[in-house]
């Protein structure tokens, strides 16, 4: 049952992806200029040859069909700017880095966010709660591109504790600042979400009934309260994965991390059509997949959900 549902969801993801590619395709092409508009003037014959090679001389809808055909084959096309590299090569090199960064930030956000939210709910209206609430509001309000440079200033330049950027294999200190900067807004949001749902759960009749049964508080929190309070956080993790991705585009740029977020920005500036679209496709698959995993986890945790 569960497998069939997962399969159906994956099938229904295909039209979603196509619509996404369609919108992204027309958006990049509607930006003024093209991949071969440089300061150095290219001879008109060379330019015509280039355009023919990359199908740029064709009408847009034909180009779209060419592109769609090629991604159906799993080929994201050649990069317009990084000569001798295909988009597949570039993404294959950058994706593991981006994925590790995103997964680390997501895990950190879920663990720290739910713990903070739980403590805030347990010590409601106390100093602990007010501090966590203040942190939450700040974390949601201040964007990553402000937090990250401030953290570099403080921890890398002033205190010299951590590197200001880079991503060397085996150097774990490279991870600390970008992961925290990427996770911070999500920690803040999850903490708020968890606090609210935990307060609701703690006020529910079944928790009062659990106390009437004489169960120890730790057992009540662990067994009776955590799961229902965590469910709203779980359903937020789909949108959160999209938030992590958009965040990583900025964070990778600031910390010069060789992931695919960097290509997204550079590709857009260079009008490297295939590179930008390739990254969009990968991100799209990632978000759809994250939402599917969230829904399957939800079904596993909530006995009332059936497929």
């Amino acid at each position, binding site marked *: 049952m569960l497998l069939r549902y997962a399969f159906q969801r994956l099938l229904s993801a295909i039209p979603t992806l196509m619509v996404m590619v369609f919108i992204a395709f027309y958006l990049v092409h509607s930006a003024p200029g093209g991949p071969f508009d440089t300061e150095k003037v290219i001879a008109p014959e060379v330019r015509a040859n280039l355009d023919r090679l990359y199908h740029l001389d064709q009408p847009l809808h034909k180009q779209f069909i060419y592109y769609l055909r090629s991604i159906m084959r799993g080929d994201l096309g050649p990069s317009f700017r990084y000569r001798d590299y295909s988009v597949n090569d570039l993404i294959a090199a950058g994706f593991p880095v981006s994925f590790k960064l995103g997964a680390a930030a997501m895990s950190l956000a879920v663990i720290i966010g739910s713990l903070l939210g739980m403590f805030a709910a347990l010590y409601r209206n106390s100093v602990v709660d007010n501090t966590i609430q203040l942190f939450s509001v700040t974390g949601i309000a201040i964007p990553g591109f402000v937090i990250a440079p401030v953290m570099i200033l403080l921890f890398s330049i002033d205190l010299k504790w951590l590197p200001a950027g880079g991503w060397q294999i085996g150097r774990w200190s490279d991870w600390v600042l970008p992961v925290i900067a990427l996770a911070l807004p999500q920690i803040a949001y999850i903490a708020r979400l968890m606090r609210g749902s935990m307060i609701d759960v703690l006020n*529910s*009749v*079944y928790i*009062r*009934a*659990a*106390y*009437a*049964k*004489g*169960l*120890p*508080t730790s*057992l009540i929190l662990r*067994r*009776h309260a955590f*799961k*229902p309070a965590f469910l709203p956080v779980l359903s937020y993790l789909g949108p959160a994965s999209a938030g992590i991705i958009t965040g990583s585009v900025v964070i990778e740029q600031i910390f010069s991390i060789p992931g695919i977020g960097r290509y997204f920005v550079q590709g857009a500036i260079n009008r490297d059509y295939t590179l930008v679209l390739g990254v969009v496709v990968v991100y799209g698959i990632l978000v759809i997949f994250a939402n599917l995993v969230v829904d399957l986890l939800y079904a596993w*945790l*909530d*006995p*009332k959900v059936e497929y």
Partner: protein
Amino acid sequence: MCILDVEDLSVKYATRSGLLTAVNHISFSLMQGTTLGIVGESGSGKSQLAMALMGLLDTSARQTGKIIFDGQTISDFDRTQRRHINGNRIAMVFQDPMSALNPYLSLATQMTEVLMVHQQMRYKQALEQSITMLAECGIDEPKTRIHSYPHEFSGGMRQRILIATALLCRPALLIADEPTTALDVSMQAQILDLLKQVQHQQKMTLIVITHDFGVVASLCDQVMVMYGGQVMEYGLVAELLQQPLHPYTQGLLESMPTLKKTGKQLYSMPGDPPDPVYLPQGCPFEPRCRQRLAECKTIKPEPVIAENAGMVFCHAAS
């Protein structure tokens, strides 16, 4: 033997508009194996009284007076000491069976945990005992059904499950807060029968909180009528229902529809219950009372022992 002795119990809350009195100087005692019905309108303080007996009042509540259970002053107990009594010697059945079971846990988990915590049983043994208790409380095929989740049961079934869970440790005292209010009429009768039956079998003391004199008449030996957080009248069910002495009890009974009084308009008591922040100095029922005297407004009535051995708190009845 006296199992429960409540002495001068009050529950107050500090609110923004002033001190709210939910339970106002209540005293009573219960013999083992008897059933007490606590009757009153919404807001009369009956549920707060139940919460005080369970030691589950909100942390903002101020409780004074004494609760003595089986010789122990449990009102002085700390949380951990109370924990060993709750669900073990004193158990509670909640009003709404739809929300009193945790929707995310199977019955097996929610039942066995009581035995595992209080009687240090192993899961297997606890499961067996829970299955037996479900069967006793009228759940069919308990062996397979115990692994189901609450949403797979009807309201009446869930109330049976709650009762079964409450009875797991064979408590000496069971508090049932409006156990039939959320159920339809035929289910109400079944649940009342079940309560009667288990109480008889286990020689358990039962406190039933209700606003339904029908429940009182079919289940209880004694009845306590509450209003504005205070006791209005206390007595044996047979006598009190036959010959209510307090004007409030009289009004409540008169406002119940019966098959005899057809054709006449049903009596309804004028006015509203008092604001628990601004309780009257004298009798809380004075503004709505048909028999009020001059002193009712200012002087709190002392208990009067009536001819039928009941107790009534009323100037007009003395």
